[in-house]
Protein backbone atom coordinates (compact mmCIF):
# COMPACT_ATOMS: atom_id res chain seq x y z
CA UNK A 1 0.00 0.00 0.00
CA UNK A 2 2.71 2.38 1.08
CA UNK A 3 4.81 1.36 -1.90
CA UNK A 4 2.12 2.02 -4.44
CA UNK A 5 1.26 5.37 -2.87
CA UNK A 6 4.84 6.45 -2.99
CA UNK A 7 5.17 5.25 -6.51
CA UNK A 8 1.98 6.97 -7.51
CA UNK A 9 3.09 10.23 -5.99
CA UNK A 10 6.58 10.13 -7.38
CA UNK A 11 5.98 9.04 -10.90
CA UNK A 12 4.45 12.24 -12.23
CA UNK A 13 7.23 14.25 -10.57
CA UNK A 14 9.92 12.05 -12.01
CA UNK A 15 8.36 12.44 -15.40
CA UNK A 16 8.31 16.22 -15.05
CA UNK A 17 11.96 16.71 -14.16
CA UNK A 18 13.54 15.67 -17.45
CA UNK A 19 10.95 17.76 -19.27
CA UNK A 20 11.83 20.84 -17.25
CA UNK A 21 15.53 20.29 -17.87
CA UNK A 22 14.96 19.70 -21.54
CA UNK A 23 13.36 23.11 -21.87
CA UNK A 24 16.55 24.85 -20.74
CA UNK A 25 19.07 25.65 -23.44
CA UNK A 26 22.29 23.65 -23.34
CA UNK A 27 24.35 26.65 -22.21
CA UNK A 28 21.99 28.14 -19.68
CA UNK A 29 23.53 31.39 -18.61
CA UNK A 30 21.77 34.48 -17.35
CA UNK A 31 22.04 37.62 -19.51
CA UNK A 32 25.32 39.52 -19.03
CA UNK A 33 23.61 42.37 -17.17
CA UNK A 34 22.29 39.92 -14.57
CA UNK A 35 25.54 37.99 -14.42
CA UNK A 36 27.63 41.07 -13.70
CA UNK A 37 25.31 43.93 -12.64
CA UNK A 38 28.27 46.33 -12.58
CA UNK A 39 28.11 46.20 -16.36
CA UNK A 40 25.08 48.55 -16.21
CA UNK A 41 27.25 51.26 -14.70
CA UNK A 42 29.96 50.67 -17.26
CA UNK A 43 27.73 50.76 -20.32
CA UNK A 44 25.27 53.41 -19.05
CA UNK A 45 22.48 51.61 -20.83
CA UNK A 46 24.28 50.96 -24.11
CA UNK A 47 23.85 47.55 -25.72
CA UNK A 48 26.50 44.88 -25.31
CA UNK A 49 26.93 42.44 -28.15
CA UNK A 50 28.48 39.06 -27.50
CA UNK A 51 30.90 38.99 -30.38
CA UNK A 52 34.38 40.16 -31.45
CA UNK A 53 35.89 39.33 -28.03
CA UNK A 54 37.69 36.07 -27.39
CA UNK A 55 38.28 34.93 -23.84
CA UNK A 56 40.65 32.06 -23.17
CA UNK A 57 40.62 30.70 -19.64
CA UNK A 58 40.82 27.12 -18.34
CA UNK A 59 37.39 25.58 -17.90
CA UNK A 60 38.74 23.75 -14.85
CA UNK A 61 41.05 26.02 -12.86
CA UNK A 62 43.50 24.19 -10.62
CA UNK A 63 43.54 26.86 -7.96
CA UNK A 64 41.45 30.01 -7.64
CA UNK A 65 44.48 32.02 -6.49
CA UNK A 66 45.99 32.07 -9.95
CA UNK A 67 43.99 31.52 -13.10
CA UNK A 68 45.69 32.43 -16.38
CA UNK A 69 43.52 34.40 -18.75
CA UNK A 70 44.00 35.66 -22.31
CA UNK A 71 41.66 38.11 -24.00
CA UNK A 72 41.77 39.29 -27.56
CA UNK A 73 39.47 41.63 -29.42
CA UNK A 74 38.85 41.66 -33.14
CA UNK A 75 39.92 45.24 -33.90
CA UNK A 76 42.25 46.78 -36.50
CA UNK A 77 43.75 49.03 -33.77
CA UNK A 78 44.11 51.98 -36.15
CA UNK A 79 43.96 55.66 -35.17
CA UNK A 80 40.24 55.73 -35.95
CA UNK A 81 39.17 52.25 -34.94
CA UNK A 82 40.63 50.72 -31.79
CA UNK A 83 39.80 49.21 -28.43
CA UNK A 84 39.65 52.01 -25.92
CA UNK A 85 38.91 50.07 -22.74
CA UNK A 86 38.81 46.44 -21.81
CA UNK A 87 37.07 45.29 -18.62
CA UNK A 88 37.60 41.97 -16.92
CA UNK A 89 34.58 41.22 -14.75
CA UNK A 90 33.75 38.52 -12.25
CA UNK A 91 30.35 37.07 -11.41
CA UNK A 92 31.12 36.04 -7.82
CA UNK A 93 34.26 37.74 -6.57
CA UNK A 94 33.61 40.20 -3.74
CA UNK A 95 34.82 42.95 -6.07
CA UNK A 96 33.29 42.43 -9.52
CA UNK A 97 35.77 44.51 -11.50
CA UNK A 98 38.94 42.46 -11.84
CA UNK A 99 40.69 44.99 -14.04
CA UNK A 100 40.09 47.93 -16.33
CA UNK A 101 42.62 48.17 -19.13
CA UNK A 102 43.12 51.24 -21.28
CA UNK A 103 44.58 50.77 -24.72
CA UNK A 104 45.46 53.00 -27.61
CA UNK A 105 46.24 52.58 -31.32
CA UNK A 106 49.90 52.27 -30.21
CA UNK A 107 48.98 49.03 -28.46
CA UNK A 108 48.93 47.51 -31.95
CA UNK A 109 47.00 44.40 -31.12
CA UNK A 110 44.09 44.23 -28.72
CA UNK A 111 45.27 41.16 -26.86
CA UNK A 112 46.60 40.57 -23.38
CA UNK A 113 47.41 37.86 -20.91
CA UNK A 114 47.20 38.16 -17.14
CA UNK A 115 46.42 36.03 -14.10
CA UNK A 116 43.31 36.49 -12.04
CA UNK A 117 41.83 35.32 -8.75
CA UNK A 118 38.49 33.57 -8.72
CA UNK A 119 36.50 33.12 -5.55
CA UNK A 120 34.76 29.88 -6.49
CA UNK A 121 33.26 28.51 -9.67
CA UNK A 122 31.71 31.28 -11.75
CA UNK A 123 31.51 33.15 -15.02
CA UNK A 124 34.20 35.55 -16.12
CA UNK A 125 33.22 38.29 -18.56
CA UNK A 126 35.48 40.36 -20.79
CA UNK A 127 33.93 43.54 -22.17
CA UNK A 128 35.57 45.79 -24.75
CA UNK A 129 34.56 49.35 -25.45
CA UNK A 130 35.64 50.42 -28.92
CA UNK A 131 36.70 53.90 -29.96
CA UNK A 132 33.23 54.38 -31.48
CA UNK A 133 31.69 53.75 -28.05
CA UNK A 134 30.17 50.36 -28.80
CA UNK A 135 30.46 47.46 -26.35
CA UNK A 136 31.40 43.88 -27.18
CA UNK A 137 31.79 40.96 -24.83
CA UNK A 138 32.59 37.33 -24.23
CA UNK A 139 32.00 35.15 -21.19
CA UNK A 140 33.45 31.91 -19.91
CA UNK A 141 32.33 29.45 -17.28
CA UNK A 142 35.13 28.42 -14.93
CA UNK A 143 35.06 25.64 -12.37
CA UNK A 144 37.47 26.33 -9.54
CA UNK A 145 38.56 23.23 -7.68
CA UNK A 146 39.28 23.10 -3.99
CA UNK A 147 42.34 21.56 -2.49
CA UNK A 148 42.00 18.22 -0.69
CA UNK A 149 44.78 18.82 1.79
CA UNK A 150 44.11 21.91 3.85
CA UNK A 151 47.32 23.89 4.24
CA UNK A 152 48.06 25.88 7.37
CA UNK A 153 51.82 25.73 6.99
CA UNK A 154 52.09 29.48 7.61
CA UNK A 155 50.84 29.16 11.19
CA UNK A 156 53.75 29.75 13.49
Amino acid at each position, binding site marked *: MLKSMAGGALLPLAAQVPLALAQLPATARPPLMELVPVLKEITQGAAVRESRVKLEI*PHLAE*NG*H*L*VPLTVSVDSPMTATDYVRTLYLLSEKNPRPIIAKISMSPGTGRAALTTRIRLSGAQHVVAVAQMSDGTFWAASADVIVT*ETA*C*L*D*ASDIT
Partner: protein
Amino acid sequence: MIRRGVVLLLLLAVTHSAISAQSAQPVQPFRPTPLKSGIDFSGAEVRALQQDDFSSPAMLWVTRGEKLWNEPAGNSGKSCATCHKDARVSMKGVSAGYPKVDPDTAKLTNLEGRINQCRTQNQQAAPLRYESDELLALTAYVGLQSRGQPVNVVIDTQNRRNFERGRDIFYTRMGQINLACTHCHDRNFGRKLLNDTISQGHGNPYPAYRLEWQTMGSFHRRLRACFFGVRAELPPAGSQDLLDLELFLAWRSQGLKVETPGVRK
Protein backbone atom coordinates in the same frame (compact mmCIF):
# COMPACT_ATOMS: atom_id res chain seq x y z
CA MET B 1 35.26 20.96 0.86
CA ILE B 2 37.71 20.69 3.70
CA ARG B 3 35.58 18.03 5.34
CA ARG B 4 35.43 16.03 2.15
CA GLY B 5 39.22 16.14 1.98
CA VAL B 6 39.45 14.79 5.48
CA VAL B 7 37.02 11.99 4.70
CA LEU B 8 39.14 10.98 1.74
CA LEU B 9 42.25 10.97 3.86
CA LEU B 10 40.43 8.86 6.44
CA LEU B 11 39.49 6.38 3.76
CA LEU B 12 43.14 6.11 2.84
CA ALA B 13 43.97 5.54 6.49
CA VAL B 14 41.45 2.72 6.78
CA THR B 15 42.51 1.12 3.52
CA HIS B 16 46.09 0.86 4.60
CA SER B 17 45.83 0.07 8.25
CA ALA B 18 46.05 -3.65 7.52
CA ILE B 19 49.01 -3.38 5.18
CA SER B 20 51.34 -1.40 7.34
CA ALA B 21 50.80 -2.38 10.92
CA GLN B 22 53.66 -0.79 12.81
CA SER B 23 56.38 -3.31 13.49
CA ALA B 24 59.33 -3.10 15.83
CA GLN B 25 61.68 -3.94 12.98
CA PRO B 26 63.29 -0.96 11.24
CA VAL B 27 61.61 -0.32 7.93
CA GLN B 28 63.59 -1.16 4.85
CA PRO B 29 63.40 2.10 2.95
CA PHE B 30 62.72 2.06 -0.75
CA ARG B 31 62.33 4.52 -3.56
CA PRO B 32 59.11 4.75 -5.51
CA THR B 33 59.39 3.36 -9.03
CA PRO B 34 59.42 4.77 -11.55
CA LEU B 35 60.83 7.84 -9.85
CA LYS B 36 58.66 10.78 -10.91
CA SER B 37 58.91 14.47 -10.18
CA GLY B 38 55.84 16.25 -8.90
CA ILE B 39 55.74 18.21 -12.15
CA ASP B 40 54.73 14.97 -13.89
CA PHE B 41 51.59 14.93 -11.73
CA SER B 42 50.88 18.63 -12.25
CA GLY B 43 48.25 20.13 -14.51
CA ALA B 44 48.89 22.04 -17.72
CA GLU B 45 48.77 25.48 -16.08
CA VAL B 46 51.38 24.67 -13.45
CA ARG B 47 53.63 23.02 -16.02
CA ALA B 48 53.37 26.06 -18.29
CA LEU B 49 54.30 28.35 -15.41
CA GLN B 50 57.37 26.31 -14.49
CA GLN B 51 58.55 25.81 -18.06
CA ASP B 52 58.81 29.46 -19.06
CA ASP B 53 61.33 31.38 -17.00
CA PHE B 54 59.61 34.66 -17.63
CA SER B 55 56.14 33.37 -16.84
CA SER B 56 57.30 31.72 -13.65
CA PRO B 57 56.48 33.91 -10.64
CA ALA B 58 59.27 32.05 -8.81
CA MET B 59 61.82 33.87 -10.94
CA LEU B 60 60.99 37.11 -9.13
CA TRP B 61 62.69 35.60 -6.09
CA VAL B 62 65.66 34.55 -8.20
CA THR B 63 66.01 38.12 -9.46
CA ARG B 64 65.99 39.32 -5.89
CA GLY B 65 68.42 36.59 -4.85
CA GLU B 66 70.88 37.66 -7.51
CA LYS B 67 70.76 41.21 -6.16
CA LEU B 68 71.27 40.01 -2.59
CA TRP B 69 74.18 37.82 -3.69
CA ASN B 70 76.04 40.93 -4.76
CA GLU B 71 75.04 43.20 -1.88
CA PRO B 72 77.38 43.60 1.10
CA ALA B 73 75.81 42.50 4.39
CA GLY B 74 76.83 42.65 8.04
CA ASN B 75 79.86 44.04 9.81
CA SER B 76 82.29 42.35 7.43
CA GLY B 77 81.06 44.48 4.54
CA LYS B 78 81.29 41.35 2.41
CA SER B 79 78.73 40.15 -0.07
CA CYS B 80 78.29 36.51 -1.05
CA ALA B 81 80.09 37.42 -4.26
CA THR B 82 83.14 38.71 -2.37
CA CYS B 83 84.12 35.14 -1.53
CA HIS B 84 82.11 33.01 -3.96
CA LYS B 85 82.41 35.30 -7.01
CA ASP B 86 80.04 34.34 -9.80
CA ALA B 87 77.33 32.07 -8.40
CA ARG B 88 76.72 30.63 -11.85
CA VAL B 89 80.17 29.07 -11.60
CA SER B 90 80.77 28.61 -7.89
CA MET B 91 77.30 27.37 -6.95
CA LYS B 92 76.83 25.03 -9.90
CA GLY B 93 75.57 21.70 -8.63
CA VAL B 94 75.94 22.72 -4.99
CA SER B 95 72.32 22.50 -3.85
CA ALA B 96 71.92 19.02 -5.35
CA GLY B 97 74.16 17.69 -2.56
CA TYR B 98 72.18 19.20 0.32
CA PRO B 99 71.37 18.59 3.12
CA LYS B 100 74.83 17.61 4.25
CA VAL B 101 76.83 17.44 7.45
CA ASP B 102 78.77 20.60 8.03
CA PRO B 103 82.42 19.80 8.73
CA ASP B 104 82.78 22.58 11.33
CA THR B 105 79.70 21.92 13.42
CA ALA B 106 79.27 18.21 12.56
CA LYS B 107 75.56 18.95 12.24
CA LEU B 108 73.21 18.22 9.38
CA THR B 109 72.64 21.47 7.47
CA ASN B 110 70.38 22.28 4.57
CA LEU B 111 70.93 25.03 2.03
CA GLU B 112 68.99 27.57 4.10
CA GLY B 113 71.10 26.71 7.13
CA ARG B 114 74.29 26.93 5.11
CA ILE B 115 73.39 30.38 3.82
CA ASN B 116 72.67 31.58 7.33
CA GLN B 117 75.90 30.05 8.57
CA CYS B 118 77.76 32.08 5.97
CA ARG B 119 75.88 35.18 7.06
CA THR B 120 76.61 34.84 10.76
CA GLN B 121 80.19 33.54 10.53
CA ASN B 122 81.62 35.12 7.42
CA GLN B 123 79.51 38.21 6.82
CA GLN B 124 78.90 38.88 10.52
CA ALA B 125 75.28 39.60 9.72
CA ALA B 126 72.08 38.52 11.44
CA PRO B 127 70.71 35.22 10.17
CA LEU B 128 67.77 35.50 7.80
CA ARG B 129 64.42 34.32 9.13
CA TYR B 130 63.14 31.04 7.71
CA GLU B 131 60.47 31.77 5.05
CA SER B 132 61.60 35.39 4.77
CA ASP B 133 61.63 36.68 1.20
CA GLU B 134 65.38 37.26 1.53
CA LEU B 135 66.24 33.70 2.55
CA LEU B 136 63.87 32.26 -0.06
CA ALA B 137 65.43 34.54 -2.67
CA LEU B 138 69.01 33.53 -1.90
CA THR B 139 68.10 29.85 -1.64
CA ALA B 140 66.25 30.04 -4.96
CA TYR B 141 69.15 31.82 -6.64
CA VAL B 142 71.72 29.31 -5.37
CA GLY B 143 69.35 26.42 -6.10
CA LEU B 144 68.84 27.59 -9.67
CA GLN B 145 72.53 26.98 -10.34
CA SER B 146 71.86 23.26 -9.88
CA ARG B 147 68.75 23.13 -12.03
CA GLY B 148 68.80 20.07 -14.25
CA GLN B 149 71.40 18.28 -12.16
CA PRO B 150 70.45 15.06 -10.37
CA VAL B 151 69.79 15.12 -6.65
CA ASN B 152 72.86 13.52 -5.13
CA VAL B 153 73.24 12.98 -1.41
CA VAL B 154 75.58 10.42 0.08
CA ILE B 155 74.55 8.51 3.18
CA ASP B 156 77.62 7.74 5.25
CA THR B 157 78.67 7.27 8.85
CA GLN B 158 78.38 11.00 9.49
CA ASN B 159 74.74 11.35 8.52
CA ARG B 160 73.41 7.83 8.97
CA ARG B 161 71.65 8.63 12.23
CA ASN B 162 69.94 11.63 10.61
CA PHE B 163 68.96 9.43 7.69
CA GLU B 164 67.45 6.81 9.98
CA ARG B 165 65.54 9.38 11.98
CA GLY B 166 64.17 10.88 8.78
CA ARG B 167 63.26 7.44 7.50
CA ASP B 168 61.42 6.65 10.74
CA ILE B 169 59.41 9.87 10.50
CA PHE B 170 58.48 8.97 6.93
CA TYR B 171 57.13 5.57 7.95
CA THR B 172 55.47 6.58 11.24
CA ARG B 173 51.74 7.17 11.46
CA MET B 174 50.92 10.55 12.89
CA GLY B 175 48.16 13.05 13.51
CA GLN B 176 44.43 12.67 14.00
CA ILE B 177 44.18 11.14 10.56
CA ASN B 178 46.85 8.65 11.55
CA LEU B 179 48.72 8.43 8.28
CA ALA B 180 52.41 8.15 7.55
CA CYS B 181 54.06 9.91 4.60
CA THR B 182 54.47 6.51 2.94
CA HIS B 183 50.74 5.90 2.75
CA CYS B 184 50.16 8.69 0.29
CA HIS B 185 53.53 9.12 -1.37
CA ASP B 186 54.74 5.52 -1.79
CA ARG B 187 51.52 3.62 -2.17
CA ASN B 188 49.09 6.06 -3.72
CA PHE B 189 51.00 8.46 -5.92
CA GLY B 190 49.20 9.19 -9.14
CA ARG B 191 45.81 8.72 -7.49
CA LYS B 192 43.37 11.48 -6.65
CA LEU B 193 42.39 13.33 -3.50
CA LEU B 194 39.52 15.45 -4.78
CA ASN B 195 41.11 17.15 -7.77
CA ASP B 196 44.65 16.86 -6.41
CA THR B 197 46.90 14.18 -7.81
CA ILE B 198 49.08 12.67 -5.11
CA SER B 199 52.77 13.05 -5.92
CA GLN B 200 55.72 11.02 -4.74
CA GLY B 201 56.65 13.79 -2.32
CA HIS B 202 60.04 14.87 -3.60
CA GLY B 203 61.86 18.05 -2.66
CA ASN B 204 63.49 18.67 -6.05
CA PRO B 205 61.54 21.86 -6.99
CA TYR B 206 62.06 23.73 -3.71
CA PRO B 207 62.08 26.51 -2.84
CA ALA B 208 59.06 26.68 -5.09
CA TYR B 209 56.16 28.99 -5.87
CA ARG B 210 52.92 27.38 -4.79
CA LEU B 211 49.62 28.68 -6.10
CA GLU B 212 48.07 27.70 -2.78
CA TRP B 213 50.52 29.96 -0.94
CA GLN B 214 50.48 32.72 -3.56
CA THR B 215 54.16 33.05 -2.83
CA MET B 216 57.48 31.28 -2.70
CA GLY B 217 58.05 28.76 0.06
CA SER B 218 60.71 26.44 1.38
CA PHE B 219 60.63 22.64 1.32
CA HIS B 220 60.13 22.75 5.09
CA ARG B 221 57.00 24.82 4.64
CA ARG B 222 55.72 22.22 2.19
CA LEU B 223 56.48 19.45 4.68
CA ARG B 224 54.65 21.38 7.39
CA ALA B 225 51.63 21.56 5.10
CA CYS B 226 51.63 17.75 4.92
CA PHE B 227 51.89 17.50 8.72
CA PHE B 228 48.87 19.76 8.93
CA GLY B 229 47.13 17.67 6.29
CA VAL B 230 47.18 14.66 8.60
CA ARG B 231 46.39 16.90 11.60
CA ALA B 232 49.74 16.27 13.28
CA GLU B 233 51.76 18.72 15.30
CA LEU B 234 53.74 20.96 12.95
CA PRO B 235 57.51 20.85 13.48
CA PRO B 236 59.05 24.31 13.09
CA ALA B 237 60.83 25.10 9.82
CA GLY B 238 64.53 24.38 10.24
CA SER B 239 63.89 21.92 13.10
CA GLN B 240 65.90 18.73 13.45
CA ASP B 241 62.87 16.60 12.52
CA LEU B 242 62.41 18.37 9.23
CA LEU B 243 66.15 18.41 8.48
CA ASP B 244 66.35 14.65 9.02
CA LEU B 245 63.24 14.10 6.93
CA GLU B 246 64.72 16.34 4.23
CA LEU B 247 67.84 14.15 4.13
CA PHE B 248 65.79 10.97 3.86
CA LEU B 249 63.66 12.49 1.11
CA ALA B 250 66.74 13.66 -0.77
CA TRP B 251 68.08 10.10 -0.67
CA ARG B 252 64.69 8.88 -1.81
CA SER B 253 64.68 11.28 -4.77
CA GLN B 254 68.29 10.48 -5.69
CA GLY B 255 68.71 10.95 -9.43
CA LEU B 256 65.68 13.20 -9.96
CA LYS B 257 66.62 16.49 -11.55
CA VAL B 258 66.66 19.64 -9.46
CA GLU B 259 63.87 21.96 -10.66
CA THR B 260 64.55 24.92 -8.37
CA PRO B 261 62.77 27.29 -8.50
CA GLY B 262 59.76 25.12 -9.23
CA VAL B 263 56.06 25.88 -9.45
CA ARG B 264 53.44 23.74 -7.80
CA LYS B 265 49.73 23.85 -7.21
